[in-house]
């Protein structure tokens, strides 16, 4: 691998001070566009994801639906959610929505994460988990407004869609994007995807009779790097519970804006003390590892 960074880091979880190298490279913001109005629920994206990432299989059971499993999982990062919806005029719609990490501009998971370097956000918008730094506290699980990060009890780490950062970093599109047979998935710059999405939404309004068609790119979390075109953008909940105004739990915002700097000062003072101790007293021979605390996720997440 060359010295050149494949993806430029912009935010790092649990990391004080400036992000190393920030602003040293230009980077376009990427975006995944999901046109729910041309999704045929074929699940090619599910398979492409599992195949590319070599995720282990798990048994599933029939549950009166075409949906593969109820929710995404630590080894299943991309799930089409199916819902039969009867419209007022009596016609039926079978709504399908690809559920996966939304790669938020303001990622709740990252805000919540106390482990330095476990969650990073790249300048191109991808939010990526680095399991080697993950302490398994599951704060990210509760910080996410979309119920995406999933805990693997065996490894005690949390996993989710990487937006194929390995592929994107090497100049390829994400695996799901490439596989999508109908082209309901599209990948490009955020700007281009927004334009494409708006054009399609307009077509749906003007030609196909979906007067409430629109784009889902929730402002409440600063927008996302995965956006949807919906037949009915006024009711995103119809699409298996896509939240209308997703938000990050207050506690995590607070943690970031108030407690974190305070904690940092405390930690810095502590560290200075340690350093002084080290310099003037010498190293301590053994330093037992303290297991990280695993607190309960804050209440209230489910309501979001």
């Amino acid at each position, binding site marked *: 691998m060359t010295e050149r960074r494949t993806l430029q880091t912009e935010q790092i979880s649990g990391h004080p001070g400036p992000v190393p190298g920030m602003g040293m490279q230009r980077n376009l913001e990427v975006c995944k566009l999901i046109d729910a109005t*041309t999704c045929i629920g*074929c699940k090619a994206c599910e398979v492409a994801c599992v195949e590319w990432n070599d995720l282990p299989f798990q*048994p599933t059971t029939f549950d009166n639906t075409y949906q593969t499993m109820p929710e995404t999982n630590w080894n299943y990062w991309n799930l089409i959610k199916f819902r039969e919806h009867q419209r007022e005029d009596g016609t039926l719609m079978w709504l399908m929505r690809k559920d996966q990490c939304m790669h938020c501009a303001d990622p709740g998971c990252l805000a919540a994460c106390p482990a330095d370097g476990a969650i990073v956000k790249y300048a191109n918008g991808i939010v990526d988990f680095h399991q080697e730094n993950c302490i398994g506290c599951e704060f990210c699980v509760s910080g996410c407004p979309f119920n995406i990060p999933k805990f693997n009890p065996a490894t005690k780490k949390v996993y989710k869609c990487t937006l194929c950062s390995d592929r994107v970093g090497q100049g390829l599109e994400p695996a799901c994007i490439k596989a999508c047979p*109908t082209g309901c998935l599209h990948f490009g710059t955020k700007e281009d995807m927004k334009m494409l999405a708006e054009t399609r939404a307009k077509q749906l309004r003007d030609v196909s009779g979906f007067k409430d068609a629109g784009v889902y790119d929730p402002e409440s979390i600063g927008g996302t790097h995965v956006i949807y075109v919906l037949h009915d953008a006024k009711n995103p909940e119809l699409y298996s519970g896509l939240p209308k105004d997703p938000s990050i739990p207050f506690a995590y915002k607070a943690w970031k804006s108030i407690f974190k700097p305070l904690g940092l000062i405390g930690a810095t003072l502590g560290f200075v003390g340690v350093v002084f101790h080290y310099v003037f007293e010498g190293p301590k021979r053994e330093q037992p590892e303290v297991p990280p605390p695993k607190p309960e996720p804050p209440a209230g997440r489910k309501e979001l």
Partner: protein
Amino acid sequence: MTNGWIDMKNTDMMLIMGGNPAENHPCGFKWPIEAKRARNAKMIVVDPRFTRTAVVADQFLQIRAGTDIAFLGGLISYALQNNRINKEYVVNYTNAAFVVKEGFKLPEDGLYSGFDPATQVYNKSTWNYEEGGNLTGKAAAGATMMAAAMHAGAHPAMVVAAAATAAAKPGAPPPPPMLPPNVAYDLSLEHPRSVYQLLKKHYSRYTPEMVERITGIPKEQFLKAADLFTSIRKDGDTKKVGTIIYAVGWTQHTFGTQIIRTAAMLQLLLGNVGRAGGGVNALRGHANIQGATDMAGVFDILPGYLKVPVPNDKDFDTYINRITPKAAKPKEWDSFNYWSNTPRFAVSLLKAMYGDAASKENGWAFHYLPKVDRRYSVTDIWDDMYRGKVKGIFAFGMNGVAIGPNSKKNIEALKKADWLVVCELFPDETSSFWESPGITAEDQKKINTTVYRLPGAGFAEKDGTFVNSARWLQWKNAALPPPGEAKLDQEILARIFLKIRELYQKEGGKFPDAILKAAWSYTNPNNPSLVEVAKEINGKALADVTDEKTQTTIKAGQQLPGFGFLRDDGSTSGGNWLYCGSWPEAGPLMQRRGTEDPSGLGIYPNWGWSWPMNRRVMYNRASCDVSGKPWDPSRKQVWWNEAAGKWVGNDVPDFKPDSKPQDHMGPFIMNPEGVGRLFVPLGFVADGPFPEHYEPFESPIANPLHPYQSTNPVVKKFKTAMDKYGTPAEGYNVVCTTYRLTEHYHYWTKNNPMNVQLVPEPFVEIPEELAREKGINGGDKVRVTSARAEYIAKAMVTKRIRPMKIDGKTTYQIGIPIHWGYRGIVEEEGKTAKDLANELSPTVIDPNAHTPEFKGFLVKLEKA
């Protein structure tokens, strides 16, 4: 397909019916979506279930399985009554103006003229054109004749038929009726016996009310769809174009061929055939069944759709005279009649098969070929095996037990066979028939069938050619060797054949000639290189061959550049004339990877190779008006270039290149008439010149059109004790249809953990209302029973299938995906009932294509 996958992006209107491309051909389905996105094209989906294709439709209509002809007939009637047709196209490119013989009778009572109830076949002598000339403006006289015929009712036809039957003596059958070379016609289309008037009369019975009674589609919904589909011809518009897309939802019926014909007729009336974005497009279900049909993997043809010899073909000349059609057309028109080249194709094929042993003197080894005079379809194989006549069977990649129909009969049949040789990738139901559920170890000791299970090679381990639905030949490369001791299929076949040949050489035996003389000069006879076989199929010159017109000479030993060079004097050989040109001397065109598409129409002329002669849209002469100008200049396929004096275009013209528009040569060059057939004369179809709605063999109602002739009069059913058929009176009153899911592929992916994860278990899709009636909740086990067997799986209770009113009666439909059996990951983990969906399906087949009725049979449903 007449057109191709990418071409669908050029359309304005789609009717998707009898197919579910979003689920079964997802990557091809991007092009209909593209038409919606880029052209605002409209999509109408008609299906027994709200499928994943219906999800993106502009209008979805739920139809009762097996009533497609009623729906399409209704569309034809709507188009004719509302003048939503392309009149110029209809008059000049179809047989609408042709006058039909006196004595021909429409099936008001369910029967066409000529039906013999004793043999249950039609005498088709009245299904013919009238001899004569231009009757335009002479309709009055014709009307009198017609009136006379009508006055006599059905009788004249029956008399004609009876006379013909009586005249037939054993051993001396009468010469088959021929098409008249000089067809009578009326360009005003007013002659009462013109095809157009007969057609109009025939489908006038398919009123919106009748469509509703039969199909269960409410009249308003039908009219909305009819208006939408035919809107491309509103106010005389000839620019817009519509396509019809179908799959086995149309073929798997006892009238499947006729459903497809109805669609073709509708497309001819609208002038949609031959045009970019138009056509009648069959989505074939498997990687190379288009190729398997081209290459005569089926009993009734030889490679390139040549007809098989029959016992009355006493020699090659008799055979070739019988199968080579003569032009039949209005005198003033021209007909290319491309099949007049049949002798060249047939001789070249026999030279490829038998090499030097095929000579002019021995009639090109004609008698090496078996003579066929009855049906030998796959359903007949199992029937004849069950009756003890078929003793041995090779199954190279076809899982006959799982495919059915009536799978339990196939298992019983195999118990009676002497031997079975299976070549497969995974343990399958057919090779494991002797250990299928319900057979104990004691029973197994009584099964005397020897079974060989040979490990074959998967697609990634083999090179060779597949032909897709769009007739593209594409070569694939081998990525790795087969695992373990598994071998390439061609090696297995070659070694078996050469071993048999060796036995005949050493020991003699019955008629060893063909076995000993079959041409087998491959470099490695035990494992023929598919490159050598592909070249053999393309064909080569055995002596120097010169094209008179261009003075091009192909030297002896060189590959032929196209079927124009095939000869009937033994100077060329070629295994399949349709593929001639795919591997010329310059190299394999089916390996090309050119990604350029200069016209933007998705033609990709330099990618792979498409039969015939790299034409991407068939009958593309019809994309132009009579004067040779494209109907729509923005979607030009081909056109007449007056200066050059020839047809040119973005696509390869599917036409005689120098035939001037003034010559009025018909665009449908494979028909001896040169025009498209709204009326099919003589014996080309078994069940009638115009498609008529018949009920599925097992139906919840009597046919509202003619209750006393409810089903297809020439349907083929079977008669052993295991061939049982159910009726509503016996309680079988739920319509059942079978299908594939997008997550699985037939009986393969049940071996594949990823696909098993996607859909882990068999299920039955059931309307909410029926579930409520029966006290069934989603996930409950249900028992589906047909007259043949019972099937147990979990219920998927859904809004996507609704109760229907059929002829006034509430009727339910259910659906069963076919993918499970008794071998597979979940099967062997004991998670399923190990039933095969096709244990339920009936042994009853289409009289033309011999395809079983997997769709729309009757069952009972209860909570298990």
